[in-house]
């Protein structure tokens, strides 16, 4: 196995606050890597750096052997790097289904094709709609598919967020706390599907989560981030036994 | 019922000049109706519409409504030169409607390809600019700075003035356009003052930029002599800026010549309750009166033949008709005689371009008011 994502000695500060300090991680191709750490450790910030939403102050980020340090988010998407947001970023004035349908790049996104090759566009649009209906069924939102996404409940928005990553073939998916606010029974289905995508289609996942059950079921290895740098890396058992991690993260009486 | 249209800038930069001008035209209409009406006792009505002065499309719209909706026989107006050009080119000329503007002083009016339909009862600015330049030179003022309002009026007047003034040996140290209606002209005044000349010519409207410019010019302490043209004349200006400040300010305007019509008009206007000295009020009176005479002469409310009739009643030969002498004029016309209107603002003898020879009044601010000190023909 080789590293599909490599973060090399990256630092990022907001004003005088150093959020990421000389942080290096590697995500192996085909793995489901967990990323945990205390609140404010810089996990989401790291995602934003990898996905091109922010630029690092120093260090570099590599994806499939290429330097993507200053590649903008939208181009990374086309190279198969997808992400979700911790605070759901839905398209609030579009229906839930449209939220999904907007994801795949389409011929019809060019005006030229829209006007001069309408039949191609229509055909592809129909495919996308099929796919979207499938996905929306899967994340359990079929009954609200024509509802405005802005009117969905908190958990439904998170599900929509996840559903978007299922609309296209990806290589790496960054999941930022998709479990928060999602019903546990439904979550089990989601976990199974993540595993399926991983084994059947070879997706690589990097998962931020505070739900240890989910991490335990899903992730190997797990990286612990604290104060912007890697505290340790290992299997979930190793981590749950580590003193300093317990101190910083789990608290003494958990598990 | 015979209809005349009046289009003018009731809103916009000359909004406070417009009402007395309308009153002038209304006075004529009122007198005509009191003296038996037009075309065998029909009433003459005067409809009005707003051109906004700055917006060509509004002017066209106003003219269009007058011509196509109200079906007026002829139009008094517009006031601002730009509005007149727009209305003439796009509506009045295609429709064959005569326009008589009481206030459009821009030289460009004479250049409209107008089928001889556009007339005016006020002289062109090229003339006023020329007179003003010569007047100043004759007073020994050789150096001057000019600021003009950035529209056709200001620009036309400034061009006319500058060329004559410089040809006559004067020097225009700075000649700046300014935008109308702003709150503050200190920076423009600063630019003007930076030339070191302390005589300031303001070619603008008293109500908008003119007053502010004069006030701030005084505050700046950089100027000692103020000069203005027709747009600046108004006693409110003196009150607003301060009589002592403006004392000695020189101005010109298309004047009421020393003719009988002028006094007759003044009395009638005073009786009707508006200031006979308001700019362009007498010209508007003449415009409306002339059009009424022309309609009477033409014998119907039709638009055809009106332009010929207009010339015939305005120009000699013929019996002289003075302002207010409607009944007399009607009788003469009925008798098939020629008439020659000699108006309140001048003899109103149109030349082949529809212009009238000008009479320019020289005015000076003295004891808190603009006073006429001479007439220049």
């Amino acid at each position: 196995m080789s590293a599909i994502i490599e973060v090399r000695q990256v630092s990022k500060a907001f004003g005088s606050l150093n959020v990421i300090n000389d942080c290096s991680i590697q995500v192996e191709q085909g793995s489901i890597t967990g990323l945990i750490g205390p609140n404010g450790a810089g996990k989401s910030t790291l995602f934003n750096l990898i996905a091109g939403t922010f630029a690092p102050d120093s260090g570099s980020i590599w994806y499939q052997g290429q330097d993507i340090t200053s590649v903008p988010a939208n181009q990374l998407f086309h190279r198969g790097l997808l992400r979700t947001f911790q605070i759901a970023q839905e398209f609030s004035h579009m229906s839930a289904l449209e939220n999904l349908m907007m994801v795949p790049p389409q011929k019809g996104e060019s005006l030229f094709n829209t006007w001069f090759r309408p039949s191609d566009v229509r055909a592809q649009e129909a495919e996308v709609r099929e796919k979207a209906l499938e996905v929306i069924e899967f994340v359990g939102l079929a009954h609200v598919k024509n509802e405005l996404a802005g009117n969905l409940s908190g958990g439904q928005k998170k599900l929509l967020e996840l559903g978007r990553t299922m609309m296209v073939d990806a290589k790496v998916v960054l999941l930022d706390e998709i479990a928060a606010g999602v019903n546990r029974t439904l979550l089990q289905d989601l976990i199974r599907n993540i595993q399926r995508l991983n084994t059947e289609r070879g997706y690589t996942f990097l998962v931020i989560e505070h739900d240890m059950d989910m991490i335990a079921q899903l992730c190997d290895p797990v990286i612990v981030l604290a104060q912007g740098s890697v505290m340790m890396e290992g299997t979930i058992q190793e981590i749950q036994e580590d003193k300093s991690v317990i101190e910083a993260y789990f608290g003494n009486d958990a598990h | 019922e015979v209809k005349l249209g009046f289009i003018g800038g009731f809103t916009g930069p000359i909004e406070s000049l417009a009402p007395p001008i309308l009153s002038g035209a209304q006075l004529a209409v009122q007198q005509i109706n009191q003296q038996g009406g037009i075309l065998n006792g029909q009433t003459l009505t005067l409809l009005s519409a707003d051109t906004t002065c700055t917006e060509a499309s509004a002017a066209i719209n106003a003219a269009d409504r007058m011509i196509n909706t109200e079906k007026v026989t002829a139009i008094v107006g517009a006031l601002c030169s730009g509005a007149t050009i727009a209305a003439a080119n796009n509506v009045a000329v295609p429709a064959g409607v005569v326009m008589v503007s009481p206030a459009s002083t821009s030289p460009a009016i004479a250049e409209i390809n107008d089928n001889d339909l556009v007339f005016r009862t006020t002289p062109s600015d090229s003339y006023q600019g020329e007179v003003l330049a010569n007047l100043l030179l004759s007073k020994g003022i050789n150096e001057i700075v000019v600021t003009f309002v950035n529209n056709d009026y200001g620009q036309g007047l400034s061009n006319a003035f500058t060329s004559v003034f410089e040809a006559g040996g004067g020097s225009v140290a700075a000649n700046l356009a300014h935008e109308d209606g702003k709150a503050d002209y200190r920076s423009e005044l600063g630019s003007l003052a930076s030339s070191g000349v302390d005589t300031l010519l303001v070619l603008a409207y008293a109500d908008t930029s003119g007053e502010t410019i004069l006030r701030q010019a005084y505050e700046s302490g950089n100027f000692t002599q103020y000069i203005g043209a027709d747009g600046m004349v108004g006693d409110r200006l003196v009150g607003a800026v301060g009589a002592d400040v403006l004392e000695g300010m020189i101005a010109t305007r298309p004047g009421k010549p020393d003719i009988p019509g002028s006094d007759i008009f003044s009395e009638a206007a005073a009786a009707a309750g508006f200031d006979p000295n308001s700019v362009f009020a007498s010209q508007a009176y003449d415009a409306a009166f002339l059009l009424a005479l022309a309609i009477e002469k033409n014998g119907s409310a039709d638009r055809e033949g009106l332009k010929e009739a207009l010339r015939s009643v305005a120009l000699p030969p013929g019996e002289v008709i003075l302002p207010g002498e409607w009944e007399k004029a009607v009788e003469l016309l009925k008798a098939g005689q020629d008439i020659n209107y000699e108006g309140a603002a001048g003899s109103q003898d149109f030349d082949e371009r529809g212009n009238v020879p000008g009479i320019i009044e020289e005015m000076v601010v003295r004891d808190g008011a603009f006073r006429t000190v001479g007439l220049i023909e």
Partner: protein
Amino acid sequence: MNTQWLTKEFGLCMALAVSILLLMVFMGSAYGIRVLVEASCYAIIALGLTIQWGYAGLFNAGIMGFVAIGGFSAMLLTFPVNQGFWSSDQASDLGQAFLKLLGAVVIVWAVVQLRRLSVPRSIRLPLLLITLAVAYLWVVNGFAPVTQAIVSQHGFIGGFGMPVWVGWLVGGILAGTVAYFIGHICLGLRSDYLAIATLGVAEIIKAFLKNSEWLTRGTLTVSPLPWPVPSAGEVGFITARALYLSVTAVLIAIIFYLLHAAYKGPWGRMMRAIRDNELSSAAMGKDVNQRRLEVFILGCILMGIGGAGLATFNGIFDPNGYLPLHHTFLIWVMVILGGPGNNLGTLFGAVFVYVIWIMSEPVALFILNTVSYFGNLWFAWEAPSDFASRALQARVFSIGLIITLVLRYAPKGLFPEKVQQYS
């Protein structure tokens, strides 16, 4: 649900049609058609805005700048050729001035490209500023004598005497080109910041058109402009205007069809997504800046075409007439009242608001005249002498009242944007 909307929309359209009919009856058909033609030109402009705001959420408050560019191009390309100028020396002098401009652009561009030679920023920036200043002075001094000579000897350079449709087309293209450059600078800005920046751009465009007398005659205005159809002088007002209306109507039909296709499809969805959430659209692979630029340019092209149509119809190019505030917001009100993001609503809004705008003056006059007539009759009340001119102020008041009332009762517009439903 669906049929309910249909009847409401249908009802509104019928009401509008009836009021247009009434307008024709009361104001005469020549005037009525004239209002319609102007409304149709405004509708093209409003469609341009609705794709910018309604589709992509771009707050363009500089509409009048692009409309003015359209009008300018209609004037420049179609106005008869000024032989006097072209056969004089100034023509070649002007050509030389343009060569200087070109040269200056090349030099500035070259200095900017120093970046590639990895010249340090500390040297590049001062160098660039100095080059800019020198180039500016050089170009300005190159143009000044020529343009002054042109103004004093020939008035202005005159038009190119081309067919009207070329003028309109170029109007659109020119507006689009300007939009391209402006978009590059401004589209990074957020909503209201963008608004005020575009407003500034419009002011700058207007100031340029107004003060470049050699090119536009400035405030002296250029008229009459040729028409694409026989003019009123030849065939009478009604026929000429009806012909003109048919031209703009066809234009609107084409634009409407194209926009509708784009809006319904993936393109429209993508635009709405960008409008809703930029961060998320970028994460979903949409090139936000590029797409916003695209829609900005498209909208501005329509504004340019609409502006050209308007100038040609009015037969006059008057840079003063492009009052940024009033007209910009007239168009905004059209879009907001009609329902942003709804093309049909925008068309409706354009006609509706324009009719109100036009009719408010005579209506206000009529009301006040009636008041003064009866006041006189019943109470012997004398209207003040400047009553007629004050009456016209009532227009301003009544427009304001109508806008607020309609917004109050239909805050999402009369034709709200619909959520796309899939079974």
